[in-house]
């Protein structure tokens, strides 16, 4: 089992972590990860079919934003490993890995919304001192730590087996999980607040509310809101441009006045401008 566990860990590192170095190339999707795990474990055909089955199952499961419900990648690796190394059926292997997917999602949640936030202030500090090497270093360090832990989890998952894992899933208090989920839901607020600090203008603040209301009440997608925004902004910009042009003309007229034009002519100029 040790060899299989090491192989599973390697596949996770290679595919799941590797996907984020290769431009989100989707080498972490079940269809690919299953084939790679099968290849390394010596049963490519089994890996291909399990991968394809799970790809179909998780076709719609994309981790949007910070919310994770289950992890297809770890489920695939474990399903293939169990199916190859033990004599349980392919179907049973797929079913068994579901609690592991949930457990993995929990650990990821705790990592993503808890542990990893310690990097945020370090990043700010590095930027403020133009420490570019440091910035690149923690960019990849956070990647290494996150996916390193994930790969170790895969190792433990295979080594300890699924019965131990499903009892562990029952052990995690539900309300702690809910709290972590809530933290993941609320923490982006800090990021938006920092951006708002830069963009804020008391006269424009109402547009923030408009964007919020359009999304939450009308469920408009971001593209639609951007289009509405562009329409408003274009109208505003043309009006501002007219004002700018008027001001320019006025100052041009003012110079003319200095050159001998009387008040009445200036008003006429303004009117026809």
């Amino acid at each position, binding site marked *: 089992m040790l060899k299989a566990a090491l192989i599973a860990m390697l596949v996770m590192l290679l595919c799941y972590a590797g996907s984020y*170095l290769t*431009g*989100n*190339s989707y080498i972490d999707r079940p*269809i690919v990860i299953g084939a790679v795990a099968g290849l390394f474990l010596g049963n490519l055909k089994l890996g*291909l*079919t399990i991968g394809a089955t799970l*790809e179909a199952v998780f*076709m719609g499961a994309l981790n949007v*934003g910070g919310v994770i419900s289950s992890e297809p990648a770890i489920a695939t690796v474990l399903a293939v490993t169990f199916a190859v190394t033990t004599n349980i059926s392919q179907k049973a292997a797929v079913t068994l890995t579901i609690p592991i997917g949930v457990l993995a999602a929990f650990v990821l949640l705790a990592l993503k919304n808890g542990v*990893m*936030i310690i*990097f*945020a202030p370090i*990043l*700010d500090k*590095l*930027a403020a001192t*133009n420490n570019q090497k440091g*910035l*690149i270093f923690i*960019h*990849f360090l*956070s*990647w290494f730590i*996150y996916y390193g832990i994930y790969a170790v989890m895969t190792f433990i998952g295979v080594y300890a087996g699924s019965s131990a894992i499903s009892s562990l899933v029952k052990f995690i208090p539900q309300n*702690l999980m*809910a*709290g*972590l*989920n809530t*933290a*993941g*839901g609320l*923490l982006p*607020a*800090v*990021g*938006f*607040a*920092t*951006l708002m*600090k*830069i963009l804020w203008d008391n006269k*424009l603040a109402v*547009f*923030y509310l408009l*964007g*919020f*209301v359009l*999304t*939450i009440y009308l469920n408009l997608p*971001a*593209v639609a*809101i951007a289009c509405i*925004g562009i329409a408003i*902004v274009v109208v*505003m*910009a043309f009006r501002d*441009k007219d004002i700018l042009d008027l001001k320019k003309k006025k100052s041009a007229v003012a110079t003319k006045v200095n050159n001998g034009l009387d008040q009445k002519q200036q008003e006429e100029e303004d009117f026809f401008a």
Partner: protein
Amino acid sequence: MKITENLSKEEKKMLNSMSLRSFAMHADRMGPAKFHASGFTFCMLPAINRFYKTTKDKEAALIRHVQWYNCTPHAENLILGIVASMEKEKSLRGDDFDDQSITAVKTSLMGPLSGIGDTFFQGILRVIAASIGIGLSMQGSIMGPILFLLIYNIPAVFLSFYLTYVGYSLGSTFIQRVYESGGMQILTKAASTLGLLMMGCMTAMNVKFKTTIALSIGKGKPIALQGYLDQLFKGLVPLLITVGCFYLLRKRVNINWVMLGIFILSIVLGLIGVV
């Protein structure tokens, strides 16, 4: 469209370097308050180092970019290109050029580009690639995963390079024209307006809160508090939390305390059974 004709050799080198770096843009995991801030900055480094000569200017640019950032891979290369062209303009004009407009343009593009990008890459391209791949894999052919990767990645990689060039070329000529007509102030105001509108949209989409508290009065069905909150104003808690964070940050409260506060608050709410 001939997008490379007006670019110098060094500029092409810089854009290629940025496009290559964008492959690792989403590698970082620094929590929901930063998302891919370090990744974006990592991709911007070639431009920052090329355009800014003094350490002070470089620091300012880095601070500008290590803010919350998230967008669909590949599609976001358009932002990289446009922002690079704005940094160039900023480096040429100095204090004349309002750096708020860089953040505003970046912010207002994330949402819409993600919308288009997610639909195209995840919704269309990935589903086509997967449907072909699954069929072949089921028959036990290794071509399944290989075709899946090729169908998805060839257009994706091509687009990521192309969009960096498009963003940079369009960005620089456009910005130069606007500047010369004296409309930079108008552009900054417009970008800020659009930026704030999209911030509101992103707050509504990304900041989530739901309470499971229910008051049981008498024998009737328990009354869910969330229902009342939604009747009062939908998304009230996320909005208040975001505005609250904004207020605290404006009062110069350290960002770490704000994050820690939200984290502890969430855990406590979880433990006492509010969420």
